[in-house]
């Protein structure tokens, strides 16, 4: 009896220590992540004068001039809209195509599939910059230069190898017995993918959607080279265009950081809303 009690006690103590340790780790983690981001936020609401103060100001009195300046310098709403269409369609298209392909690679035995997969990886090997000149010619021939369609086409293609690669282990993680049971029940492939794999893979799918969205969102090279006018320019291009009056060189840090903040907010909104979808998907799958 006695023995059991002390044992219980030490378990409690262990659990407490564990909890404490976890919270300390969490605190360190949050600090490390937040400090540089805070630095960015702070700069976005500082005047250039405040930025050059030594010692650095920790809590400047926030001003919103930088955002106003940004909006007058650049067609920001147009860029934002373009970015949302570009990244959103790219993310959806990529995840859809890759989900199908990954299922095939993971579950359908087919001669040469390993080789195909390998070939897919190798196409990632070429640095983006080595591809832009041929791509420029191609888009020019297809009359897709300076258009969102062209950008989406290229970006979707760029993101596919990685998306396929991430989906494969997720699909393999799912016990094949579920699928076999469904086949016995007379389910067709569409039902299998739609009713069995999709719910279970919701976290992975949503995660990849976010990842692809952000990758497209932050991609600079393609919008920079393929877009000429505001009708297809994206937010990332704005970084190369913001300026300080009468200053031909360098980056106006107060404006660039304001732009950085503007660019992060839609992504955060997306992440926040998708977290709910993940949770819902999980419970949905569990109920099934």
């Amino acid at each position, binding site marked *: 009896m006695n023995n059991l009690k002390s044992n219980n006690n030490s378990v409690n103590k262990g659990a407490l220590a564990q909890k404490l340790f976890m*919270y300390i*780790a969490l605190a360190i*983690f949050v600090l490390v*992540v*937040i*400090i*540089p*981001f805070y630095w960015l936020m702070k*700069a976005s609401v500082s005047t250039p004068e405040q930025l050059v*103060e*030594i*010692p650095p100001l920790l809590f400047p009195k926030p001003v919103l001039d930088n955002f106003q300046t940004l909006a007058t310098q650049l067609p920001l709403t147009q860029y934002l809209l373009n970015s949302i269409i570009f990244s959103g369609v790219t993310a959806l298209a990529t995840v859809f*195509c*890759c989900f*199908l392909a990954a299922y*095939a690679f993971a579950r*359908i*035995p087919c*001669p040469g*599939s*390993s080789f*195909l997969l*390998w070939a*897919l990886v*190798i*196409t*990632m*090997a*070429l640095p*983006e*910059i*080595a591809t832009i000149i*041929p*791509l420029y010619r*191609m888009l020019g021939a297809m009359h897709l230069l300076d258009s969102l369609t062209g950008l989406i086409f290229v970006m979707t*293609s760029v993101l*596919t190898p*990685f998306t396929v*690669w*991430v989906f494969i*282990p*997720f699909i*393999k*993680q*799912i016990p094949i017995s579920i699928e076999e049971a469904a086949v016995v029940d007379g389910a067709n*492939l569409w039902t299998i993918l739609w009713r069995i794999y999709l719910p279970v893979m919701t*976290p992975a799918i949503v*995660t990849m959607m*976010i990842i692809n969205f*952000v990758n497209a969102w*932050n991609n*600079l090279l393609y919008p920079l080279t393929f877009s000429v006018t505001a009708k297809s320019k994206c937010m990332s291009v704005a*970084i190369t265009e913001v300026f300080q009056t009468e200053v031909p060189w360098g*980056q106006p*840090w107060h404006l660039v*950081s304001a732009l*950085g903040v503007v660019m*992060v907010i839609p992504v*955060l909104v997306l*992440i926040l809303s998708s977290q709910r979808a993940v949770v819902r998907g999980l419970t949905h799958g569990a109920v099934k």
Partner: protein
Amino acid sequence: MHQNKRKAILVFAILVAPVILLRLATAAYPIGQTIWLSMTDTHLFESEHAFVGLDNYRNLFADPEFRSILGFSLVFIVASTLLEIFFGLLIASLLNTKFKGRFLARTINLLPWAIPTIVAAYAFQWLLDDQFGMFSHWISQFTGMRPSVMSSALNARITLILVNVWKNASFMAIIFLAGLQGVPQELYEAARVDGAGPLTRFFKITIPMLMPLLITMGMFFLIWQLTNFDLVYGLTSGGPGTATTIVPLNIFHEGLIFFKFGYASAISVILMVFVAVLGLVGVWQFRRFDY
């Protein structure tokens, strides 16, 4: 049976067709062209270009600067990837435990990665500035010295790797987190009943269950960091000297700034060989981890 097999191949073909066609359209031609260009002396300043065989490769490997760039690139991608996996796992397991505000913490986790790389690079340039930076300010308060982290080769290299890990570990973490959510809770319950501590559970359940994902992600990050240079470009410009120059930055300079297409293509091909080898490892592990 035979009939079935043919059907299977057909289904396979249809399922992978969109991805393969997309890649063929945008990657096949550039790759072919790069391989061809790498064997010529194409320079946009010259009107005539000749086939030179493997001269570009010979020149590359004879250049001590390129050898040191290649060396640092390998250190950079391997060290970054290992640290990213390590911290990614740590963060993922941390965020997978139950605590108040977990939702918020998961969102915060994504901040570093959601910031455009080039903006993050500028942010760190400011943060680490010896005059206006918060780091140097704090350190000078404690030690009376103003560290200048970027102006020695070793420090710049370490800083670059750490910033890179800061930027990408969260990306790793969310994928691992998605993976962890697929690990059946019963396994943990069973282990707990058997009296396994958190560390044992981590090594006996979490790691093996995530292994395919760990290798996939590790491999992908090796490749991805081998071909991307935004962070280096924005943070150090490859300096001081060529201490933090990595191969893709070198390709960018040789190709798009100096217009030496032939030479730059040769570097790209070397990069491709690296990726091809890594890809083989990846394909092999997919077979190995078949359930």
